[in-house]
């Protein structure tokens, strides 16, 4: 079973990130709390467990709308031996804070963050990165992923996607009824994994990994 690695450097980074948000970006405190719930952790742990089972190549990983990326980054680097994680996030505050939360990974060139709306701009227009895995754990907030795939055609990309059928939040603009619809929306033809999981908050999350 995978657990969230509490490395001394991560504890230090997290404490400094909270302190920074408290001093400089108080309006983000509530958002950090929402990103740090038991359910948020459960969904990232589930993702990491399945990725490890599949023994995927994680040399370079893209996170789409990764928010603060504070749970998934240590999980993938310490447990799944990811080489580099790049967080593409359109919210500048979240992007900046993701650097703070992952400061020591950033210093050691294992974490980067880029301000970008991934549905309206190409992910990697100058082929700076050689991504193996594209992770989007917030598909319910975005246009169907088939559009992204078409815009960023690349045979090397494996996708790990999560979504939900929980329509109670007004920013859930693209809920799906199950993992099959998620795969269909993303035009995932080779499915390595698909499944669902009920989280601590009662929300059902669906996950598909494939290409």
């Amino acid at each position, binding site marked *: 079973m995978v657990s969230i690695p509490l490395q001394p450097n991560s504890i230090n980074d997290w404490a400094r990130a909270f302190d920074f948000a408290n001093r400089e970006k108080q309006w983000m405190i509530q958002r950090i709390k929402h990103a740090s719930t038991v359910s948020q952790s459960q969904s990232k742990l589930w993702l990491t467990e399945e990725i490890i089972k599949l023994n995927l190549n994680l040399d370079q990983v893209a996170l789409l709308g990764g928010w603060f990326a504070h749970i998934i980054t240590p999980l993938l680097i310490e447990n799944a031996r990811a080489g580099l994680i790049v967080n593409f996030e*359109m919210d500048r505050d979240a992007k900046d804070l993701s650097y703070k939360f992952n400061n020591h990974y950033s210093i050691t060139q294992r974490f980067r963050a880029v301000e970008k709306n991934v549905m309206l701009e190409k992910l990697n227009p100058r082929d700076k990165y050689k991504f193996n895995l594209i992770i989007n754990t917030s598909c319910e907030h*975005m*246009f169907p992923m088939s559009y992204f795939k078409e815009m960023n055609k690349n045979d090397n990309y494996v996708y790990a996607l999560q979504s939900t059928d929980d329509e109670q939040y007004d920013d859930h603009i693209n809920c799906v009824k199950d993992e099959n619809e998620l795969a269909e929306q993303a035009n995932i033809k080779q499915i390595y994994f698909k499944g669902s999981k009920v989280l601590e908050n009662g929300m059902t999350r669906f996950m598909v990994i494939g290409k």
Partner: protein
Amino acid sequence: MNIICVSWGNKYTDYIPKLKKQIQNNCSVDYNFHVLDDHVLPTHWDKHFIPDKNFFWAYRKFYMFNEDLFPFMKGDEFLYLDLDLLIHQDLKYFQQLDMSKPYIVRGWWNDIKNCRKNFGRIKSTPLNSSVIRWNRGQLKPIYDHVEKYKEVIFFTYRTIDNYLAHHFYDVWDESRGYFKGFPKGDIYSWYKGNVYPVDMEEKLLRPEYKICLFNNSAAKIDEHMNEIEEIKELW
């Protein structure tokens, strides 16, 4: 100067003569008034509008950013006005602005920190497209952007103002936006107040300002301007 309003359907058609009269009474420079209604508005984005979602519902306003679609609009200066507003002062002011950038209403009644907090959730825009001032061609990039990404945009953005805040403004550094906001003291809101947090009294007329806005679709207020006692003699 071209002064434009946009009207689709028939919900606000009785507002048009009211606006026209207000402009006659409050504009000391030469102007041409254009009503862009269903007879002249294009329809090529209609198929991207999803009625069940009702996102991006005011998209027809964006057609005017491509002036070539309306060849009867001559000249280079454009002032767009929503139908549901009250003009207090001479519109000449808007013609005389420095036009190094186009202008849009910066809703000063919004707490910009709240706009930053909700940026990722595509909520709480600081912009309000009830009044827009531009010169020919300045807003064509917006039309082109919507045209290029219409499928995603109509699916994603609840309002055109949310969209503009995301792509043609900078809520973290407001001096860097594609638009300039009209300065404090120009435009206020009947339902939301004037300047956060110091002057937020609602339903207060401020006749020393240029324009008062009456839209409040976000709060689902659907009050006809005729029903507002305080403005009956002014409107």
